[in-house]
């Protein structure tokens, strides 16, 4: 998991000293091996990703209600329907609110945790593991814990118990959208699940910063603490930060489980995937409109990702630093 191991291996004299493996096979053998190793993955990719995307694109031009093998071609009607559909447009707004909340908060928290864990000199491995562990929990399970014990509306729910000590009345965190406490529930569950993983990424990056830089900064008179962090650490984490933000955005786009499990039978708080789920697999089973929505969403994600790459320089390599 940590980069220190990888670096250790790369530099180990044993690896450098090993004689090269003799090549016994020709080009054909190598091609075969290439397919052998990539084959299973590629097959999975084609069957579970590309074929469904292609099928979805096909469905989006048909009137496909209660069927996935439609016959009535209707051109761009599904696209018009989805783009003029308030619910779909609202779902994009919901997503924007969600991303605006969850991305910066997770970024800040995981960076903060990484700095703390990087600093401590004892039980580092323990804290690293403890913060990373929630990553292994499924979103569904975590949502249920959040819903039924942490943020349950009854007096013995964890959050309500704590508030009760200060004389605050029980709050219906999820049922009542005024004020929208449900955002607190949704953002905290994702925060708990994700920040450990991004902490590890930041930790790896922190450990990659050459100590000479800090020494030079100290000699130049940089004060330890904020100044060093602002002018040495943060610029050195630029590439990792960009990657983390990109990953967080992608994950936010894919958000489904917690919304689906926490907000039942509402008309609010539905990000695009949940809205599309209800369109395609809900009571209407309108696979055509659902697919059109999925296509629009895919296009949007592509555009946003490309724009972000352009703005933040992700993937341009070292020379941008």
């Amino acid at each position, binding site marked *: 998991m940590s980069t220190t191991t990888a670096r250790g291996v790369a530099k180990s004299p044993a690896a450098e000293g090993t004689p090269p493996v003799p090549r016994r096979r020709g080009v054909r053998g190598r091609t075969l091996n290439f397919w052998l190793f990539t084959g299973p993955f590629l097959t999975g990719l084609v069957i579970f990703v590309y074929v469904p995307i292609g099928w979805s694109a096909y469905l989006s031009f048909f009137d496909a209600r*209660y069927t996935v093998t439609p016959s009535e071609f209707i051109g761009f009607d599904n696209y018009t329907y989805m783009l003029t559909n308030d619910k779909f447009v609202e779902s994009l707004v919901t997503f924007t609110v969600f991303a605006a909340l969850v991305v910066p908060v997770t970024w800040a928290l995981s960076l903060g945790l990484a700095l703390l864990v990087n600093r401590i000199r004892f039980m580092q491995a323990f804290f690293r593991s403890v913060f990373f562990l929630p990553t292994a929990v499924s979103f569904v399970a975590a949502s249920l814990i959040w819903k039924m014990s942490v943020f349950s509306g009854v007096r013995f729910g964890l959050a309500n118990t704590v508030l009760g000590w200060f004389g605050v009345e029980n709050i219906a965190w999820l049922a009542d959208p005024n004020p929208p406490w449900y955002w607190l529930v949704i953002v905290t569950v994702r925060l708990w699940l994700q920040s450990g993983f991004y902490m590890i990424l930041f930790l790896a990056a922190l450990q990659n910063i050459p100590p000479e830089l800090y020494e030079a900064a100290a000699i130049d008179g940089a004060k330890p603490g904020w100044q060093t962090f602002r002018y040495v650490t943060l610029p050195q984490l630029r590439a990792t930060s960009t990657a983390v933000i990109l990953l967080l955005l992608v994950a936010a786009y894919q958000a489904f489980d917690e919304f689906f499990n926490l907000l039942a039978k509402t008309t*609010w708080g539905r990000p695009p995937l949940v809205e599309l789920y209800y369109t395609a697999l809900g009571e209407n*089973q309108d696979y055509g409109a659902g697919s059109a929505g999925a296509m629009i969403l895919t296009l949007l994600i592509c555009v946003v990702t490309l724009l972000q790459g352009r703005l933040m320089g992700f993937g341009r390599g070292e020379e941008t630093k």
Partner: protein
Amino acid sequence: MSAMRNTNWDRRTVLRAAMGLAAAGGLAACGSNNGRGGGSGSGTSLTQYFHAYGEAGTEQAVKRYAKAYDKADVSTQWITGSNFESKLFSALLTDNAPDVFEFHPQIQLVKSGQVADLTDIIEPVKDDFNQADIASHTIDGKIWGVRMIDDPQFFYYRKSMLEDAGIEPPTTLDELVEAAAKLTTSKVKGVFLGNSVTPVMNPLIWSTGADTLDDKNQIAYHTDAVADGLGKLRTMFKEGHLLLDAPADWWDPSAITQGLVAIQWCGMWAMPVIEKALGDDVGIIPFPASGPGGKQAVTNGGWSMFVNAKSKHLDEAKEYVKWLWIDQKEYQEDWALSYGFHIPPRTSLAESADKLKTGLAAEGVKLFNEFGHFDNPAWTQAMIVALEGVVADAVRKGGSAEAALDKADRTVNRELKKLFG
């Protein structure tokens, strides 16, 4: 790393062999994972879908009945989670669709050719069924499903709590609003209408004297009295007199048995558990009348067996449904009375069901007969969801009830137009 470098093994060969094995293993697994127990049965495999019943022992019971059938191997999918409909609906489009499944009678299943005509197996025993159940399963003169259980839904209330607050069981919606306020303390909430408040939408409509649809399949729920009733639900919601975000939802009796609430909307299925937990300290009442011309109401829900019209083993599936839900009265009785309480739709069974003849259960049967509203097959899932949106907008979000009903009208009318032209 270094171990791999130092060895003289031809690791490509090893990997290739390993992958070959894995692939073969995978194929073998596909071959054997066909739901057949092996040995018994004539070779036909049937799959049945059930939503996860909450009562202990139900899953084992369903599997036990299936195992006793010797003409086919019946495997059971016990679908947990709150979205049985979507799982069922999407499965019905695929090759892995269940041959037999439970659901409620809804006309779109018939119109889209998803359920098979079961008239021939029900016709001979038609007179032994509750006629309201036969009616709700009859579309275009054919009977499409076999009712397994009837489930009246009503309010349970804690007698002691009402006595302490000095109130009588409410008979009008205004009284319920008042009772909710009086019964709410720092420890106990007044009323539990479900976390989403949607379970009482239909009873609310009926309690004003209106209905979901009229005889001509036109919207009948959009009245001033219903809008008014929604406003009253909103009052209880806003004032904090409703139990919300409970760990177990309305269909589970935990809220009332754990003393979280004084009055809870639930079903007759929970009666044995509630009586065991609370003893005599519980009574039942229908949804109170609301507005002028209102009448108390009870939801007569329930579950029925359907056969997938596209099943590869259509005849065998029908045969199985006939065997279990028409012929095997012993199992039908066990299913209705041994776990939760349900009213058997078979008149002969209902008459001999001693467990339903005394005490609270007898009162439940009385409410079922006197105030119950059965399924209307023309009221489809899309329409149900549309009214759930009304509750979300008008009761939970606090928007205008009229606007929410207008919004639902558009969805329902589009649906009605599709179904009836």
